[in-house]
């Protein structure tokens, strides 16, 4: 610093910021939301533990969905493309989002996925990385969060991982056909959900037997109506192009 008059000496400057630490991700998520809204796409962020049955639910959904629904999916996975391959075999155009060591999807990865999906779609499943912790806080631009919990995981999971359930618009209780074999106390499980979610909505399903799948399809139909502005699927609606707000990579 200047030895003559002291100019250039540092001064401690306080600066008010007041911004979310996830601001950058939230901005990207809002951009994705704009993409999806322009094309009237219902986008669901499907979260749950590894092995809870996320991919199986989507395979069963592909088999049961009305022919007018145009499905698409992106699957987050640390190392492989296996889930996306399974979904493609089930007839859902799907891209894999390999996260490397990251334990969650973020809005940037989903944006990339949006530009990789080529065929037009109006119902997008974003199958998050199997994890009940980290995906909860990352907005991807989805319309709703679906948290999946298999009955094999134990009744106390909601209390152990409150945050992800707190962010859920719907809880899908999977592998419900196994309840008689496991002796799962469903009342206890639902009571635990009420301690972490103010107004839990729960659908019990078995992708294997098809139990509860009608309820799931009905819920999807209702949400689709809310997004597209019509109560039921409208085949007359002009099909929109897949999201192309701007060229890929920009």
């Amino acid at each position, binding site marked *: 610093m200047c030895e003559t008059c002291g100019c250039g000496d540092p001064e401690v400057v306080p600066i008010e910021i007041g911004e979310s630490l996830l601001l950058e991700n939230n901005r990207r998520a809002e951009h994705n939301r704009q993409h999806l809204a322009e094309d009237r796409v219902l986008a669901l962020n499907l979260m749950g533990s590894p092995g809870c049955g996320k991919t199986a639910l989507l395979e069963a959904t592909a088999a049961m969905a009305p022919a007018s629904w145009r499905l698409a999916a992106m699957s987050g996975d640390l190392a492989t493309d296996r889930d996306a391959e399974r979904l493609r075999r089930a007839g859902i155009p799907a891209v894999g989002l390999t996260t490397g060591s*990251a334990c969650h999807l973020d809005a940037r990865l989903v944006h990339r996925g949006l530009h990789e999906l080529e065929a037009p779609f109006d119902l997008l499943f974003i199958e998050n990385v199997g994890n009940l912790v980290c995906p909860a806080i990352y907005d991807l631009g989805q319309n709703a969060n679906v948290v999946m919990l298999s009955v094999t995981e134990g009744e106390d999971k909601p209390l152990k991982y409150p945050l992800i359930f707190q962010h859920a618009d719907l809880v899908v209780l999977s592998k419900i056909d196994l309840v008689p074999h496991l002796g799962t106390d469903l009342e206890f499980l639902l009571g635990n959900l009420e301690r972490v979610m103010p107004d839990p909505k729960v659908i019990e399903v078995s992708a294997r037997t098809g139990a509860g799948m009608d309820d799931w399809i009905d819920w999807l139909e209702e949400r689709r109506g809310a997004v597209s502005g019509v109560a039921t699927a409208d085949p007359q609606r002009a099909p929109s192009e897949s999201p192309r707000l701007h060229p890929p990579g920009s």
Partner: protein
Amino acid sequence: MHEFSVAQSLLDRVEREAQARGATAVLRIELRLGAASGIEVDLLRSAWELVSAGSCCRHANLDVITVPVRWRCPRCACEPASGAVLRCPECGVPARLVEGDELVLQRLEMDVPTPREVIPCVKPVDAATPR
């Protein structure tokens, strides 16, 4: 372990601010973290030490203000006890989260050299002194 991603975002944001203001060092970073923010403070500190090494923030104090989780009935304003069902026992309506999900960079303190334009650096000249 998403705390690494969050620490990296924090570093990017603070470095941008420091650069814009011509700071030589960041002294203090104040965060407001809700107990339901999904962030473990100890993990965030570990991640911060790693990501901030070698940056202008490496000596900064990371001060974390923890905000407890509070739910409230939107009708009668009563607050359910910790661990209780999140529905008002009187009104029967779902409670709403009042606070506790904050994940906020609140304020920074940094060393910013006094601009030379404001205090011009000139040697005091004694007019009586012969050159």
